[in-house]
């Protein structure tokens, strides 16, 4: 019998081969792909996020959990459309113009995927124009911007202003984060949300798309 609880547990423990085996088993037993995703993979990553926020888990534990989740996700993804499962939201993610750091951004991406989002990873050094293109081309609901440096932080405001000037501000929510970023700064530049860490980024994104 399919062990969805076991999938979640092994995601939490970062046991990628076990997650793969259990997901294969569940698929073979015709368990609904949405249930495998929600009750197994997403549930496991949800626990990982909470533990990360509470300093019970650190980066290595998050990375091995994300690797396990991805291994299961690769098996489930092709089945989701047939099962009528939609992502909880679509989000474009990038490190702002002038900033080449991607560790924090990648962690956020893992947490977002683990929360059931479809993530459009725009990479590093992302210009306001590239963020805008993601709204029109990919129809994302949320733009998530990351910056590690106080000197690159102003690109967040530049991007928000550019989105407004393009007449797209009402089409998208803006979420920001990164070492020097604060809620105060988010308020000052007119962002819709701020996340203090990667796991909170996924929580905030769910709030912004109205599924939290």
């Amino acid at each position, binding site marked *: 019998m399919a062990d969805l609880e076991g999938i979640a547990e092994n995601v939490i423990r*970062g046991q990628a081969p076990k997650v793969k085996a259990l997901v294969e088993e569940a698929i073979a037993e015709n368990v609904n792909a949405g249930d495998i995703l929600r009750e197994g993979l997403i549930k496991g990553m949800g626990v990982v996020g909470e533990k990360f926020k509470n*300093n019970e*888990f*650190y*980066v*290595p*534990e998050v*990375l*091995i959990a994300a*690797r396990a989740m991805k291994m299961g996700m690769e098996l489930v993804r092709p089945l989701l459309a047939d099962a009528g499962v939609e992502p909880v939201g679509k989000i474009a993610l990038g490190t702002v*113009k*002038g*900033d*080449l*750091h*991607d*560790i*924090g951004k*990648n962690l956020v991406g893992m947490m977002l995927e683990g929360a059931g989002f479809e993530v459009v990873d725009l990479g*590093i*050094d992302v210009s306001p124009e590239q963020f805008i293109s993601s709204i029109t081309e990919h129809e994302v609901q949320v733009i998530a911007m990351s910056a590690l*440096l*106080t*000197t*690159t932080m102003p690109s967040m405001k530049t991007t928000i202003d550019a989105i407004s000037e393009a007449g797209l501000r009402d089409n998208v929510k803006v979420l920001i984060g990164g*070492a*020097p970023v604060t809620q105060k700064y988010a308020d000052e530049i007119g962002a819709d949300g701020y996340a*203090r*860490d990667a796991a909170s980024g996924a929580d905030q994104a769910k709030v912004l798309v109205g599924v939290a």
Partner: protein
Amino acid sequence: MTHRERWVRVMHFQPVDHIPDEEFGAWNENFPVWQEQGLPKDVNNNSDFDRYFQFAPRSGIPANVGLSHGFKSEVLEDTDQYRIYIDGNGVKQQVFKDGSSSIPHYLEFPLKDRKSWEELFLPRLEIELESRYPENRSDWEQIKARYSDPGWSIPVGITIGSLFGWIRNWAGFEGVSMLCYDDPDLVKEMVSHLAALISKVIHRAVHEIKIDYAAGWEDIAFNHGPILSPKMFREFVTPNYRRIADTIREANPDAVIYTDCDGNINDLIEPWLEGGINGLFPVESAAGSDPIAIRKKYGDRVVMLGGVNKRALIAGKEAIKEELERIKPYVDEGGWIPHVDHRVPPDVTFENYVYYLHLKREMFGIPHPEEFESRPEIKAIKAKWKGVL
């Protein structure tokens, strides 16, 4: 009181005439920006910076505890927009040419597994002394004589490199994180090998020259804490620091051993102390490592270098004054040489930096260096502050 006596006394909570006049420098991007704001055009790097502001010097013992020979640096791709190259650590990286950032984007790391450790790194980390000290024995004897002279007035230190940080540099942040779970025995073996190498190399130096401090680095924390758990750090790293610390303290029990780690280091302080590290640098206040909270928690078990919140210098004169007033009572207790909590970023103006430095020197009784004070650009800046100071 010489600078050396002053430095040692501060680090041991003993009374001094004033704290040492030390700072951590600035980002390379600062120099062209500040030159537009009055900094002379010939101040282009941190050596120039130290000379220009007349900060107190340090003396370092030349003993190499790192790679005996670097990887071959090689440009792989060079376009109008970017350059992709391999550096001396074997790391493949990309730098952009539009001036948006001088920080590289890392593309590939050489340390991936046991095979790459054994083939690429072990031959560069052989535990031997000859290639790690000045080639000429007479040069070493001269250094020994100079630093052992009772009249030598500059603090003498040695670098002890890094244990986990080096592996992070060679394997990448994600690579080393994965290795901790995929091959923990290899991580332990690598850390242990580095500790054995470092202990062996510094053994000669610390027994032949009385050092005041040993300085290492880790840089394994970000704004929410260390990248790995304190439990894992204790298991993989702490006992190896103890080996290095024992080597140093059997020669000089009073030597300060400090480590450079940016980010929020609060959860690492206890494991460092257990390993014999008793000094913190640069105490990045802006990332959550509050030096006052550290002082209140650890008292004289921990000494600090740094801890002045760089964001106060970005904010302006009032914030600078508040920050210095905030730390002063604790600096006055001893065991703390305050300076900016990392290299000064380019969003700090030259004027704010000069103001910070002036106020710090004033508040802590540090003599204002004559040559610096007589510079026309400094006089011009200060003339604007009449009534502010």
